[in-house]
């Protein structure tokens, strides 16, 4: 065991509560898995899991649902992280939808998300037979998330019934389920975007370089900057990518994730920019705007 300095800074309540949640989940599950989406929240969640079980590696695998449309830098980062933390990485893609050539550019964000994310996730969970799945969602992200439990119970078929959620009092979580049912656990429920960035800074947690500003090839569509990450990006006649100093506030599939103009290339600058931001982080997520209450509907269908 590597011994660093004694008596490090006192744990924050936020951090210890998340560690408690992760341990409780693992202590009561028979086949847990962590959904790892490569973004900053996943990086923090993974870091907390590693802390919870130190000196052992976390006793569960990482699962990544690869839509095949992630930024290339994300995939490189994913493989590097998995190797470094000594955990098994399981990658799943909806092969049928891939064969059908489902693309966010052709089929629209709603249908694409349904096939390559929601359906793919359900396939991966069924194939793995997991009874408990960690996810990095936070309650401050979106209105329907604000009501989700820390231990979110899913009926057979992964369906979320918002009116039939289990009451959750104190730190007492009812983790009992019947065959076919699953629990999704959100250790970052009470974290805010600012908490995430401050924690990344204080713990020196590695994150995908896309979060930092850099000159990148982008085109403007519907008032938002999209990055041309590979040759599959169908340029309209007369459209040419321009090099612009941009960064990403959240990361997802590159055709569905808008970049922001920014010069912030240190964590300090990102935190300053976040605290002063006048738009919410999910604004860059195109799928949230598919219609009023769209996230709530997607969740009922099994989306994270």
């Amino acid at each position, binding site marked *: 065991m590597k*011994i*660093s*300095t*004694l*008596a*490090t800074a*006192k*744990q*924050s*309540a*936020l*951090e*210890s*509560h998340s*560690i*408690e949640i992760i*341990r*409780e989940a693992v*202590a009561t599950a028979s086949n847990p898995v962590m959904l790892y989406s490569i973004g900053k929240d996943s990086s923090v969640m993974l870091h907390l899991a*590693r*802390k*919870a*079980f*130190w*000196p*052992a*590696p976390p006793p569960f695998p990482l699962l990544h649902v690869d839509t095949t449309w992630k930024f290339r830098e994300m995939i490189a980062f994913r493989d590097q992280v998995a190797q470094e933390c000594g955990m098994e990485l399981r990658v799943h893609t909806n092969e049928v939808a891939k064969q059908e050539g489902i693309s966010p550019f052709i089929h629209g964000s709603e249908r694409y998300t349904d096939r390559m994310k929601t359906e793919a996730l359900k396939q991966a969970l069924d194939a793995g037979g997991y009874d408990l799945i960690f996810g990095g969602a936070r*309650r*401050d992200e979106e*209105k*329907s998330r*604000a*009501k989700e439990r820390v231990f979110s119970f899913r009926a057979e078929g992964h369906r979320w019934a*918002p*009116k039939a*959620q*289990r*009451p*959750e*009092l*104190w*730190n*007492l979580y*009812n983790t*009992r*389920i*019947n065959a076919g049912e699953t629990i999704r656990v959100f250790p970052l429920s*009470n974290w*805010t975007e*600012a*908490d995430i960035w*401050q*924690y990344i800074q204080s713990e020196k947690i590695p994150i995908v370089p896309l979060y930092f500003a850099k000159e990148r090839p982008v085109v403007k569509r519907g008032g938002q900057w999209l990055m041309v990450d590979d040759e599959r990006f169908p340029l309209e006649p007369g459209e040419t990518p321009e090099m612009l100093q941009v960064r990403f506030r959240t990361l997802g599939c590159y055709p569905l994730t808008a970049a922001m103009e920014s010069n912030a290339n240190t964590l300090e600058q990102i935190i300053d920019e976040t605290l002063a*931001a*006048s738009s*919410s982080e999910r*604004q860059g997520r195109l799928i949230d705007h598919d219609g*009023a*209450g769209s996230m*709530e509907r997607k969740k009922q269908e099994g989306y994270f």
Partner: protein
Amino acid sequence: MLDTLRFITCGSVDDGKSTLIGRLLYESKQIFDDQLNELERASDKFGTQGKELDLALLVDGLQAEREQGITIDVAYRFFATEKRKFIVADTPGHEQYTRNMATGASTADLAVLLVDARKGLLIQTKRHSRIVSMLGVRHVVLAINKMDMVAWNQATYEAIVAGFQTFAADLGFVSIQAIPLSALSGDNVAHRCIGAEWYAGPTVLDYLESIDVSKADEAKPFRMPVQYVNRPNSEFRGYCGTVASGSVKAGDAIRVVPGGAEAKVKSIVVWQGEQAIANTGEAITLTLDREVDVSRGQVISSADNPIEISDQFEVSVLCLSEHQLIPGRPYLIKLHTSQVGVTITDIKHKLDINQGTHLAANTLALNDIGEVTLYTSHPIAFEPYKQSKALGAFILIDRMTNETVGAGMINFALRRASNIHWQSLDVNKAARSKLKTQKPACIWFTGLSGSGKSTIANLLEKRLHAEGKHTYLLDGDNVRHGLNRDLGFTEADRVENIRRVAETAKLMVDAGLIVIVSFISPYRAEREFARSLFEQDEFFEVFVDTPLEECEKRDTKGLYAKARRGEIKNFTGFDSPYEKPTTPDVWLDGLITSPDEAAAQVKLALQGD
């Protein structure tokens, strides 16, 4: 990182709760431009404030709520100022949502109680005050809202404050801060009200930023419930948990409870290192100086001041389920990290939460709060809730559906488990059954009235008797004439009926007999309870599966005819449910199999063992 204050807002339907939270978010600049745009659109569609922004819509998250205009679940909201971070639990005010309010209050340090200045203290306000007091919230902000509607009248405000102080005198709040305000205009929420200078106290935001809610948990003796045993290899064995009270450092003497093993703390392991001391609230891993047997659910506590254990408690419990809580029915209790079997032995009374008075009750229905006694299957380590939320709060779980059916707080232990011993007897079951040259057993017949249970049970007993076996038949109707003649046919009484019969059968099996039980026993939970009293190969569940129509056609006792005419209430199969066994030891088709064949089949199953 800044410290976090968790608070709950409560009030009646139109007191302006959601508007106040929306206002706090808005004033602390937590609303982003894109959210404001969406809010403008939503205000047009659902808003109740005319052309104005309806800030309440920021908070009412789910679609159903936006449409109904009420909050139906607990929503958590986050905002921060330069001094503090805040987590707000926004909970519904309606009476049928007591459980949601208790959920929000369970993690709150402070409650903001909203009162409409025009209406004054309502029954709802009092109910909410009692709930937050019961859940151990010690600080209250009495937010007297809509002051603009009463022209900021000081006398109105003071009358409400005085009324509340009298009412709340025995609710145990450490601090009560009254603030006159208008959530709609924001006066006295973030900025002072111009024109109501008679109020010299803080604004809501000032107060929330500065109040000290810390508890002196660190001075208490060390306790850490073991959550997880980390054993990656033979070299390392760590006990993971969150410090519930006190602090710990390397070298401290500890005792593991229940159990009593003692050791010294070798190290406090944290990420990539060790730390010298760990305080209340920290999630840590302890290693000990010698090998002791420690598992999840035990509490590592200071050796000179170890935590107490018991298996009988007096508790306050809130029913969270559509299914009522019934004495005698087996549940699971989860208290800190331990989870064991439990039954409610007695409901002392339920609380009239509106009036604060006690009512007699046999069961607890959804949103009822009662004082009850519990009996756990094993002794567990605990502290009264008033001393420690972490060690005195629990939930009750239904064994069959896994639903969370209750939440409660330990008031005190009825007796210390260390004082009770089973009387150890020299002549035991084995000795008694040897003398009878038989293997004792309990054969449990279940099925609808008229399914043929008693006929088959009777034939079975005759056959066993003819072979020289010592038997006894406990029949539903007969037992109800004696042992259980005080019981009726409500769900609660049926549960007690089966409990007594199961315990009686257990004593008879202990006496070495082959006991045949013939009871409708309609609930799966009770049949499972009965099974749990016996050893694995002693209990045989026999399901006489005769369809309702056939039973009604036979109607040997004329009961179905009476039930049809409405002369009998709570009749199984009609207005009282029968839960079929899913995996009985013997399944008999009551339509095809004759009673003789059926008795032979059961006997075969008994011998086949």
